[in-house]
């Protein structure tokens, strides 16, 4: 029977001294906080952002054009969101002091044994279900051996023979704004999803002739997702990673914070002649980051000791999950994770959300993608639509993805730090929809509020008398005034320089302090000018 422990107080956490280990040393030294910070900034594996994947991979695209074909397969390590480690009760918080989150087991103290964290298995199963994987009723843990100072036991516990889940698929849209390619849909097959422990971090300081090891990451729970080599280029790889991040964040199974190492992408790239079989995997590329010294060495060791001498992990019984709700024998499986139960807990996935946005609200697929990519925007959208059903979804979307993002960008604020609650944004939508204000005024209101004005949009409009001028007779007056005050422009227009029309519209805007309904202005002004041209 599999035994799982539930997360709780970390009873076995112990604090190693700040300076835990000197793997080799010439003289005594101590680690100060700066050292520690510096140390934490070192990267064990490549931390790659989708964008950088893209840049690197473009080169392969170029190659592809000259009769070579590139094939990309991704291996993604996602840190499972959990409060304690995969096999121990040590904590997992990021950024704590060096070697603060280390249990006896994590330090491979003799006699300690692994205890499987139930939460991690649930997260793995949930992710597998979201990716349409086949969850194995029984999976196994294996030891993968190699010597490295940040691997205290001399082996990593992973799932080599039978992983938690297999044969999934991830569908995603390949769409790069500004690219001449048409957006298209792509599928990448998932070979397997396995649970495994992370290793610690090493720092090799050649000058001081010393090595440091931080075991905070040792034993951190990971899901490794192995994709089939069915991508063609970096754009596809980047799009896949982005979609996966959305799914994992939606599930709550991984924070996907690359800067914390919570998501790491390795790409296997093979280049072969078109029409010929795939060559041996030629390179394991760690794209997108300059490899740290430590990593380079680790990589070399990995490369040189390719035989990992796998063997079954004897201290963990087979991991059994319950695939059907009804066990044959009642109570037999009381501790087993119920897959159907987890399936019912699956949230709406990003692809489903996008479909809902386009089908129910009539939003364009591109806008839907942007909303879904930014959870805060999506939440605003739902709030705005929920508050008043009559609101125009497209107008609301535009306010969010054009106006809101623009002003936040200008102020260098993140969406999370936005000062605009949903109801404020909704009110602006209402003002626009009822033509009380125009778009320019909407921007001014946003500007006013972001600068610290705590009034509501309507109050701002009232205070500054920003109500849109829609009265045709008033606009008539404005247009007459513009024509009278700008005889030269009018003359130029009449002589065929129609480009100056925009200047005249601008004048109208200026006179009214941008309050005029510009559509009406354009309409009236056109009529008036036509009259002057053809009296």
């Amino acid at each position, binding site marked *: *029977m*599999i*035994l799982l*422990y539930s997360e709780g107080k970390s009873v*076995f956490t*112990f604090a190693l001294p700040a300076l*835990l*280990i000197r*793997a*080799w*040393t*010439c003289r005594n030294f101590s680690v100060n906080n700066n050292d520690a910070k510096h140390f934490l900034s070192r990267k064990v594996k490549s931390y790659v952002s989708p964008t950088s994947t893209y840049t690197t991979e473009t080169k392969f695209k170029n190659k592809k054009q000259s009769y070579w074909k590139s094939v990309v397969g991704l291996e993604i390590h996602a840190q499972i969101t959990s409060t304690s480690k995969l096999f121990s009760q040590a904590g997992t918080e990021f950024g704590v002091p060096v070697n603060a989150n280390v249990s*006896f087991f994590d*330090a*491979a*103290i*003799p*006699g*300690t*044994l*692994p*205890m*499987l964290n139930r939460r991690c298995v649930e997260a793995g199963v949930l992710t597998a279900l979201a990716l349409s994987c086949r969850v194995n009723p029984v999976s196994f843990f294996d*030891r993968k*051996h190699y*010597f490295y*100072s940040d691997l*205290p*036991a*001399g*082996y990593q516990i992973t799932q080599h023979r039978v992983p938690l889940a297999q044969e999934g698929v991830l569908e995603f849209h390949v769409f790069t704004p500004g690219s001449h390619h048409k957006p298209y849909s792509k599928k990448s097959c998932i070979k397997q999803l396995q649970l495994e422990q992370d290793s610690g971090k090493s720092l090799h300081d050649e000058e001081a*002739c010393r*090595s440091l*090891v931080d075991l905070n990451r040792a034993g951190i729970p990971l899901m490794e997702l192995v994709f089939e080599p069915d991508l063609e280029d970096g754009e596809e790889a980047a799009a896949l990673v982005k979609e996966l991040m959305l799914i994992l964040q939606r599930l709550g199974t991984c924070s996907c914070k690359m800067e914390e190492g919570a998501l790491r992408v390795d790409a296997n790239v093979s280049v072969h002649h078109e029409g010929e079989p795939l060559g041996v995997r030629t390179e394991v590329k760690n794209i997108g980051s300059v490899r740290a010294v430590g990593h380079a060495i680790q990589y070399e060791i990995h490369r040189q000791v390719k*035989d*990992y*001498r*796998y*063997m079954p992990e*004897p*201290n*963990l*019984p087979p991991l059994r999950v319950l695939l059907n709700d009804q066990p044959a024998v009642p109570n037999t499986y009381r*501790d087993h994770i119920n897959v159907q139960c987890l399936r019912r807990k699956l949230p709406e996935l990003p692809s489903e959300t996008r479909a809902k946005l386009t089908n129910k609200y009539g939003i364009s697929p591109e806008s839907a993608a942007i909303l879904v990519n930014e959870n805060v925007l999506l939440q605003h959208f739902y709030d705005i639509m929920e508050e008043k059903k009559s609101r125009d979804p497209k107008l609301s979307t535009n306010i969010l993805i054009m106006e809101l993002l623009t002003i936040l960008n200008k102020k260098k604020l993140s969406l999370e730090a936005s000062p605009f609650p949903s109801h404020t944004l909704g009110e602006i939508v209402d003002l626009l929809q009822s033509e009380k204000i125009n778009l320019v005024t909407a921007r001014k209101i946003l500007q006013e509020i972001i600068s610290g004005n705590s009034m509501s949009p309507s109050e701002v409009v009232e205070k500054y008398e920003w109500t849109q001028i829609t009265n045709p007779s008033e606009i008539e007056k404005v247009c007459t005034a513009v024509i009278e005050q700008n005889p030269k422009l009018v003359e130029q227009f009449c002589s065929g320089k129609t480009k100056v029309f925009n200047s005249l519209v601008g004048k109208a805007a200026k006179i009214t302090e941008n309050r005029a309904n510009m559509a009406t202005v354009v309409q009236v002004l056109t009529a008036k000018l036509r009259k002057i041209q053809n009296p």
Partner: protein
Amino acid sequence: MLSLSVRQISRKLQDGVIVPSDVCTACLYQAEKLKKLNIFVRLTKEVAEHQAKESDVRYTNGNVRSLLDGIPVAVKDNYCTRNIETTCSSRMLESFKPPYNATVVQKLQDAGAVLLGKCNMDEFAMGSGTVDSIHGPTKNIWQSGEKYTLLRNVGERATSVEQVQGCNSTHGSKMVYQELHHLSSHSNKEGSSSPSEEGDWFIAGGSSGGSAVAVASGAVFAALGSDTGGSTRNPAAYCGVVGLKPSYGLLSRHGLIPLVNSMDVPGILTRTVDDAATLLNILAGHDLLDSTTVQDSFIPLDLSQDIDISRIRIGIPKEYNCPGMSDEVMETWSGVADILERAGAEVVQVSMPHTPSSIACYSVLNQCEVASNMARYDGIEFGLRTAENRSTEELYASTRSQGFNETVRGRILAGNYFLLQRNYPHYFLQALKVRRLIAQDFTHAWSSGIDVLLTPTTLTDAPRYSQFISRDNREQCASQDYCTQPANMAGCPAVTLPIKLSKQGLPLSLQLMGQSYREDVLLAVAKWIETAVDFPRLQLET
């Protein structure tokens, strides 16, 4: 007093005849006196005295924790003991002070037991003689030159004893048993066979030799060993004590420094079967820290009711009669089978055809797991670290070559070879298949209605040191583990108990094996045999 059973001394403590501190003092004195046997790697005198004092208070206040309260025990040096060196008899862990207690050690402590010390063993439990230890070999108490008396229960109660004088005594006048005659005459110049010969002695067996001698000699009343291929039963057999290897998964391995995770079990060494049951009741049960312990709640054994032996079916597996088995062992085996049969038990011959493959299979599985388990000893997080500073790899190499003995290094090398991708299917996977066949031999026996299997524990009585070391570690283990190893393959419980003395005056023991988690049946039969054979208790002369 020191030769009493746990039950007996516990009775005396409860009756107030004696207090734990006095028992502790006596045991410490005994241990000091027997220093040349090299039983203990370390005596934990201060811990013991402190624990004994606390127990004194509990007896005074009447809040005694268990039958073990106030009773000195010892544990093998591969159990982690908080802040007490745990060396595994290896240079690698010479200065290793674990930051925690093994679960079974903690359970002993919670039961009020007094920890007298850590016992000698073969390095990382790889051996069957307790001769491959950085602390030096452990010597058997039997025929060691120490003066002792043999006590035998006459009748039903332990109150009446016949005294038989042991080694070095000049008078054998009280001896009543023919087979004990050699005991007294031992010192009478038997020429080259004399064990007290310079530099030679009878080995304690291993790898839990220290624990076995500690119990046999009266230094403690019970001890923990560990059993992977027979490491508890082998020394128990040679030292004339009861050695129980419980079912795999019944006792927690958390804090037991592993040899072969899939076969290791904590072993129990006591003077009587009842005592083994007492310790089992204290130690057994699910442990969150060991995922391989069974979750079913453990029902404590109760051996107070005599079993009806006529309802028991005893299997004699013919394959256990193997080359190298001494006539005395054969006679002992058939003798006990006859006793059982006469008493009405059904004794049948069974076949367990894969028994002879057990050792070869074991050596592959053992070495693979050893290679893996030993990978953590790299000098980084704990244990030995040499002064090598040219590179991390050089440090690993130098630490590991200096920290491990030849046997350990040899097994690591072989194990890594077996685990290479190209060899894995031919060795490890093959060995797993053979292991399944061996386990099936047992299932077949049980399904044919066998309750327990009766076999020898070892092929002979304790060998002499000189004779033992004339063979290398691999050969030693191959013959020493022959009868004990299969139970580890199958995970089933097994117990060894002393039956009689050999011509050399050494214990001859037999083994019983039972169905997994049926320690109740196993120990009930063992107790019946124990009563029937009435093996003498050894009491050192003061």
